[in-house]
């Protein structure tokens, strides 16, 4: 098989580095994780995973992550839109602030959010005291924290696509009589859809594994506000290594299924729609 000629040499070297990196950092640890659970019988698997505490924590993790990813999708689109389309004073500052959730230790974010939304915090006082809406130490707080850590993924994947959109397509739509809303839904959004989906699934994947920012704000009530990553840590602290790895494998399997499913839907849509111009 011949490869297309590439003016920059160094394929073998870079491919080698890539494989070593992938192997040491991704494949080996995950293989070890799966190998660790090899000794478990079907009955033990069932016992571990049917524990109500495990079921509710996994459900909470996946549900809150999905919700947070959806919120990120909408908010991220708005944010990217404003940052790309409208020049306003302080835009570069706002643009830089988007990356803060990446840069900040997530525990710091968790503590800050908790302080803000706890019943005696600035916002918590209003939300809980006057509106009766409990955010900190409730599932809402978990969603809030996960939304915070996932937002940059959506904004940063959408921005280059938005910048590269051909303005003539929107002008063509308007000439053809489309209202601004019709132009957005029928012309602009379809072009953003692949990037929006990628950003949202990345935010979802990040949220499923998120630990640091959530433990402070969630309150960690078993069966109520305990997320799966926290339960895994709890099991480890109890020296229940098998239980911890079993839950980890289960979480990995479920999250991967979701990602593969989303990818498959996306590819099917693309092949139905033919190639993009």
């Amino acid at each position, binding site marked *: 098989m011949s490869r297309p000629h590439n003016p920059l040499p160094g394929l073998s070297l870079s491919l080698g580095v890539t494989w070593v990196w992938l192997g040491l950092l991704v494949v080996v640890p995950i293989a070890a994780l799966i190998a660790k659970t090899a000794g478990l019988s079907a009955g033990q698997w069932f016992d571990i995973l049917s524990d109500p505490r495990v079921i509710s924590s996994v459900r909470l993790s996946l549900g809150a992550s999905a919700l947070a990813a959806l919120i990120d999708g909408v908010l991220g689109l708005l944010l990217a839109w404003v940052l790309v389309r409208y020049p306003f004073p302080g835009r570069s500052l706002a643009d830089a602030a988007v990356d803060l959730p990446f840069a900040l230790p997530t525990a710091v974010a968790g503590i800050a959010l908790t302080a803000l939304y706890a019943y005696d915090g600035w916002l918590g006082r209003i939300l809980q005291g006057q509106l009766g809406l409990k955010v900190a130490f409730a599932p809402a707080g978990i969603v809030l924290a996960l939304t915070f850590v996932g937002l940059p993924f959506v904004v940063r994947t959408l921005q280059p696509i938005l910048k590269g959109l051909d303005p003539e397509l929107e002008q063509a739509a308007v*000439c*053809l*009589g*489309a209202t601004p809303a019709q132009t957005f839904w*029928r012309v602009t959004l379809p*072009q953003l859809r692949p990037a929006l989906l990628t950003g949202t699934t990345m935010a979802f994947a990040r949220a499923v594994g998120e630990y640091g920012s959530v433990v402070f704000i969630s309150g960690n009530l078993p069966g109520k506000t305990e997320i799966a990553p926290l339960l895994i840590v709890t099991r480890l602290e109890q020296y229940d290594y098998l239980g911890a790895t079993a839950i980890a494998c289960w979480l990995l399997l479920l999250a991967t299924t979701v990602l593969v499913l989303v990818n498959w839907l996306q590819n099917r849509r693309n092949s139905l729609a*033919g190639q993009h*111009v």
Partner: protein
Amino acid sequence: MSIEVKNIDKHFGAFHVLRNVSLRVEAGELVALLGPSGSGKTTLLRVIAGLERQDRGQVWHHDDDVSGQPVRDRNVGFVFQHFALFGHLDVFENIAFALRVRKRPDAEVRARVEELLHLVQLGGYEHRMPAQLSGGQRQRVALARALAARPKVLLLDEPFSALDAQVRKDLRAWLRKLHEEVRTTCLFVTHDQEEAFELADRVVLFRDGGIEQVGTPAQLYGEPASAFVMQFLGHVQMLAGAVQGDEWRSQDGSLHLRVPAGVVPGPTQAALRHHDLDLLPPTATEGWPAQVERLTTSGPRRTVTLRVGASALPLRVELFGEHGPAPQAGDPVRVWPRQVRFWAAAQ
């Protein structure tokens, strides 16, 4: 529907793109906006569509002042240079777009799209995606899409410039035919004078944000309003010189021409069209002595490059059809202009 713009002014920052432009296009006319790039022709087209807002002046569609109306309400068909097809929609839905946003019933949409597919000769392509079409097919889809809502006027921005030479010629002829069938008022922008002359009923020639001349192709060619018009239409050579009394002399003093009455004395350019020059034998008594430098043949046209006069000015002569034996490089000849136009040199 007639289109009229009155006293349009437009700036992009400090750049004055349109300078007090007024123009009237009659219903059913096919008019070309011609000019070098940056002369304002595309901007005027976009102002008529409403895609750009003029700083000053009015746009009239028929008897309506649409100067402040949004694009959506003007019902113009606009065809973009790079097609601007919706890549995520197939040919059918691209053409149907204007009807879909107007929420027309399905049966009506289908009937209209089929009619248009037939008109642009793309029957059977309705489920192709734009990426699967050639450039010429894409531009035809763009045309059909622009025509779907029966616009009162069709505006085309350099519609053929992104296409191959042959496709461009075919589409040109096809657009002319289409216009005869549909009879929609049509304005198109081009920087290709051949395209403008071949297609348009009237040509509007732009220069630096203003209109230099408006007229039929024959008028522009036969009665150019300025040296710029002649030069832009091409196949012409300007010789610098001066008029004194009833004679024009080239700068080096070696070439002389009689000038008709009414030419003002002073620095004057003599405009010689390549095909208005006669080649004479070296023994002839009239004409300027010259030497053949090079001869090229392109189809029925032979181009002879000469050196003429004391300062060996280069001069091109175009000969068509049979003209006896071809002169060879180095041959001495004589050359004489059958027709000359004189333009006072720009100060």
